[in-house]
């Protein structure tokens, strides 16, 4: 597809999605809006992770750390009397800075060191948050009682979701995105053409961490209560990895599709007590199915079906007999 028409299409879909999502509170019930909130949260996490994991090929299994950093920054400052929404830039800044703690020592190395470090560091963060006094320990933090507006939180979440998808589309076609793609495909060849691979890995990690932290802040504001078990959960980190992989790694629509599927499943599973604990089994099965049958995920499956359909439509009808 020509780049220009691609931009027009992305912009049109994004604008339509934004208008619909912002108008939705006028005609949808609170329960449905809650579901949309959950999916928007998942879209942000999946699309932001995809910037690093999909575009640059650096797999992190520790993203709950950034959700937690965002959530705790907001909760702690809100308890000091700061307007929760005013804490978002600081949450982003803290998470971006913290991303360097993992990235600086490991991005220079070749091999799986970064991925391994992300698991260790995120678990360490969870243990610290549960153990020290100022975070409220394992019993967590309750946001100060105040004038909480779901509509405002909902609007912030869907705007952020649409903005992150737009950002990903822009990054993918920018020189920055080309550098990330080059790093993913052949890091030595990228260096040989002047790409400072360590710098761009650190940059995209920080960008992605900042976005995830803002989503974590909005999560804290919405639920009014956070604990290490809710925001630093390792299973949350795993879901963040699985959504883009199941949807279509390194694409724009893939993480959105993955988030829709996971968001929907999460809602269905959590509301039926019999299936409540089966979600890891279901996620694992989906991951295996993707790896075996369609490494490009749901989006790859969709393209394959469309090609197959186009072929069978254009094929001349065989003579009978």
């Amino acid at each position, binding site marked *: 597809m020509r780049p220009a028409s691609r931009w027009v299409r992305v912009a049109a879909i994004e604008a339509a999605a934004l208008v619909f999502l912002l108008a939705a509170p006028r005609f949808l019930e609170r329960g449905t809006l809650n579901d949309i909130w959950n999916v928007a949260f998942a879209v942000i996490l999946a699309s932001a992770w995809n910037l690093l994991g999909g575009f640059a090929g650096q797999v992190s299994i520790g993203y709950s750390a950034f959700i937690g950093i965002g959530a705790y920054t907001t909760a702690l400052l809100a308890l000091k009397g700061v307007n929760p929404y005013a804490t978002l830039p600081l949450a982003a800044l803290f998470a971006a800075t913290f991303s360097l703690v993992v990235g600086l020592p490991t991005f220079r190395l070749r091999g799986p060191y970064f991925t391994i470090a992300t698991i260790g560091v995120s678990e360490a963060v969870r243990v610290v948050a549960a153990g020290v006094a100022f975070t409220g320990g394992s019993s967590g933090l309750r946001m100060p009682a105040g004038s909480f507006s779901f509509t405002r939180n909902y609007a912030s979440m869907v705007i952020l979701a649409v903005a992150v998808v737009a950002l990903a589309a822009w990054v993918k076609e920018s*020189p920055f995105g*080309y*550098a990330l*793609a*080059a790093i993913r*495909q*052949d890091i*030595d*060849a*990228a*260096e*040989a*053409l*002047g*790409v*400072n*691979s360590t710098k761009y890995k650190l940059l995209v990690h920080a960008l992605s961490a900042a976005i995830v932290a803002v989503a974590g802040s909005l999560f804290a504001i919405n639920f009014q209560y956070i604990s290490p078990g809710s925001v630093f959960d390792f299973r949350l980190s795993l879901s963040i990895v699985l959504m883009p992989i199941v949807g279509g790694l390194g694409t724009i629509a893939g993480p959105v599709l993955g988030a829709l599927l996971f968001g929907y499943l999460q809602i269905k599973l959590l509301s039926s007590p019999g299936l409540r604990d089966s979600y890891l089994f279901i996620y694992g099965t989906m991951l295996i199915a993707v790896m075996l049958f369609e490494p490009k995920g749901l989006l790859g499956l969709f393209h394959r079906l469309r090609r197959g359909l186009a072929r069978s439509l254009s094929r001349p009808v065989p003579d009978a007999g």
Partner: protein
Amino acid sequence: MPAETILSVQGLTKRYEGLLALAGIDFDVARGEIFGVIGPNGAGKTTLFSCLVGAVAPTSGTILFRGDRIDRLPNHAVVARGLVRTHQIVRPFRDMTVRQNVSIGAHFGSGRRRKEDAGQRVGQILEKTGLIGKAEALAGTLTIGELKRLEIARALATEPEILCLDEVMGGLNPSEIMDAMKLIVSIRDSGVTVLMIEHHVHAVVGVSDRILVLNFGQKISEGIPSAVISHPEVISAYLGEEAV
């Protein structure tokens, strides 16, 4: 040499565990030369290029590029200064188009701060290397001849002062080799100093101003092509002792 020395290599040594890949190599390259590097397999030619661009850290020795030491710089920093190499075994970004591959060089090489539009520069280079018709094709779909030209095009897009070509004629047919020789001369004529490793001795003798011969990590000869290829040590390195 009356011309300005653009590259000066002194005592360059690279030791891998138990293997001396480069044993104290010295040579100078003048601005505007085509400087050939030949030698049997395993002579250390590719290791030499890897050390020059910083892809591999030399064990000892110095590399001066326009008078500045570059032997401790990482690869991307050397490219930013204007010294770039191609790979003998082509390394395209297969999931990207030819145009995107080349634009990486334009955006991140030494020409990255130039005012002219990067897209326009990429177009000119695709034209020059005969890849314009394949600009929107995925690099993974190219033939070997096209991939060799893509290696050159990407490196040229970084706007180097020195271009190191590692066996860009390997696997090409005779008419493609003729085209490649013309391309190399035209690159030199546009003001770029060219270092080239080449197995096709006739091609390298045909276009080089001077040639360096390596064998087992040692420099065994250096000079104008006609003198170098008649040097007894060079003949013995290529053909064995009895031929001398």
